[in-house]
């Protein structure tokens, strides 16, 4: 089932995308190459969507995983004093010589790259609500990997946060021009 009609000759694909923002809660993907009419055929749509969903899945796992790894590394270091500055420097040195911290940073960078990739394929108003699932994933990973106790009230709170981010994301992503 085609999610949107193909752009006519000389019609911008971006415009079609705008019309579709509220039409359906599916990633309205578009092919950059179609903005100008060209001979190259479009990639199969179903495959394109599948890859987008897969990238989103990677995104909502890599982000929380990065945070969990950072948490793991910082728990290993333990609490540190922040004053005087020499103590802070000492703590900083310890932080940056912990391999788990670097793994966490790598995971967060991977998250960021995938986030950019997803944004280039799908609407922000689709990506942001979808990424709110990360708050649930972080609690799950904390529970499974770090053995954290998550109280029922905290689960409810996380669910409400997800809902809130979902509602925020379903609004028009651009209301202002250049500053």
């Amino acid at each position, binding site marked *: 089932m085609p999610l949107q009609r193909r752009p006519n000759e000389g019609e911008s694909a971006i415009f079609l995308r705008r019309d579709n923002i509220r039409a359906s809660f599916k990633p309205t993907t578009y092919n950059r190459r179609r903005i100008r009419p060209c001979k190259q055929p479009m990639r199969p749509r179903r495959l394109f969507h599948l890859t987008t969903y897969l990238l989103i899945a990677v995104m909502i796992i890599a982000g929380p995983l990065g945070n969990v790894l950072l948490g793991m590394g*910082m728990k290993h270091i333990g609490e540190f004093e922040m004053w005087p500055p020499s103590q802070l420097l000492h703590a900083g040195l310890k932080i940056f010589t912990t391999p788990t911290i670097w793994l966490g940073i790598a995971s967060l960078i991977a998250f960021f790259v995938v986030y950019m990739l997803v944004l280039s394929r799908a609407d922000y108003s689709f990506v942001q609500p979808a990424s709110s699932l990360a708050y649930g994933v972080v609690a799950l990973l904390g529970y499974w990997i770090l053995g954290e106790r998550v109280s029922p009230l*905290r689960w409810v709170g996380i669910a409400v946060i997800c809902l809130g981010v979902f509602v925020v994301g379903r609004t028009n992503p651009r209301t202002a021009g250049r500053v």
Partner: protein
Amino acid sequence: MAAPILVQRGAFRLRQLIIFTLIVVAGTGGELCVSRAMKGVGEARSLRPSDIVKVILRALRVPWMWLGVGMMATAFFALLAALSIFSVSFVVPVTALSYVAGAFGSAAFLGERVTTQRWLGVLLVAIGVALVCLGSH
């Protein structure tokens, strides 16, 4: 390393407050500064590496960019400090408060119109964070 601060409950609360304020305010402030810088710079003309490098070089000349990156780095270290004390499933949901700060900040600082629906979402996030905080005791 022993933490004598933990002994004093009041000081502990203050420290907690400072760390989370830093995460939310510095993080959101940094994003707002970067957003402001990038809106002045404009978008990349294409995804070719040469065009992207040009945009990055132009962005680095804007002071807002440096301020933004500095604030985001501060927020990252505050996040590390928070993670050394609290559990991940508490820290990360609380950082969602940045949606609240972002709504106020973008309205005041970037001149964006924040719709009723977006305020509703922000309110829900705030309620969720309050529940997470209540659930941690």
